């Protein structure tokens, strides 16, 4: 399936950075108010999805370099939108514009990407079974 309507850089950004539809919804929500400290409950109220999924999605955005943890006195985690690089910020801004004007195509692309991921996960699982010993990550014992 081709997605000619969506600009190539947005397609690439969704393919490489955004793992799920929930994560996309969370990203769109938090980038609207970049100065706000978001709790998962705040995001859940805006997006309309369960809090547990919000935490997972926010952690995914941190791993992707699009958000960061804020220190919180209350103990509950808070997050803010903070792209790691200016180019990521521009990509998110473009994505937000496309999301507002062309949501259907973005949904279609996300569905296609989700199917591709499921397929490649099966292949990765198979390939991983033949790894005798993993390389040590920096920071491992």
């Amino acid at each position, binding site marked *: 399936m081709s997605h000619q309507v969506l600009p190539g850089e947005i397609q690439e950004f969704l393919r490489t950075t955004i793992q799920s539809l929930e994560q996309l919804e969370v990203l769109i929500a938090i980038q609207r108010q970049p100065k706000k400290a978001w709790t998962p409950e705040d995001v859940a109220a805006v997006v309309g999805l369960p809090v547990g999924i919000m935490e997972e999605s926010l952690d995914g955005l941190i791993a992707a370099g699009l958000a960061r943890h804020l220190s919180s006195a209350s103990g509950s985690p808070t997050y803010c939108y903070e792209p790691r690089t200016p180019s990521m910020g521009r990509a998110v801004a473009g994505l937000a514009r496309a999301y507002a004007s062309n949501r259907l195509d973005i949904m279609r692309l996300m569905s296609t990407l989700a199917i591709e991921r499921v397929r490649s996960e099966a292949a990765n699982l198979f390939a991983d*079974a033949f790894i005798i010993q993993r390389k040590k990550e920096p920071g491992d014992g």
Partner: protein
Amino acid sequence: MVELVYLLCALTSTGCALLLLRGYFRARSRLLLWSSLCFMGLSANNILLFVDMLLVPNLSLEIPRGIVGLGALLVLLFGLIWEST
């Protein structure tokens, strides 16, 4: 030389079966279990080949070898169909 090839085939398929079984216990993906069972069958097939050709040359194990090899592939085929439904 032929002995070495038969032996290496048996060792490789046994190694694959063990690695896939280890992968199953780690990831709990049944596709890996079916694949491991298939490679166990292929390993048995290769061991039978070694025995047939080198240890008991007067006795033909062609049919048992064929049954074991076919069984191994049928296990994988069954697993693939089972997991997809």
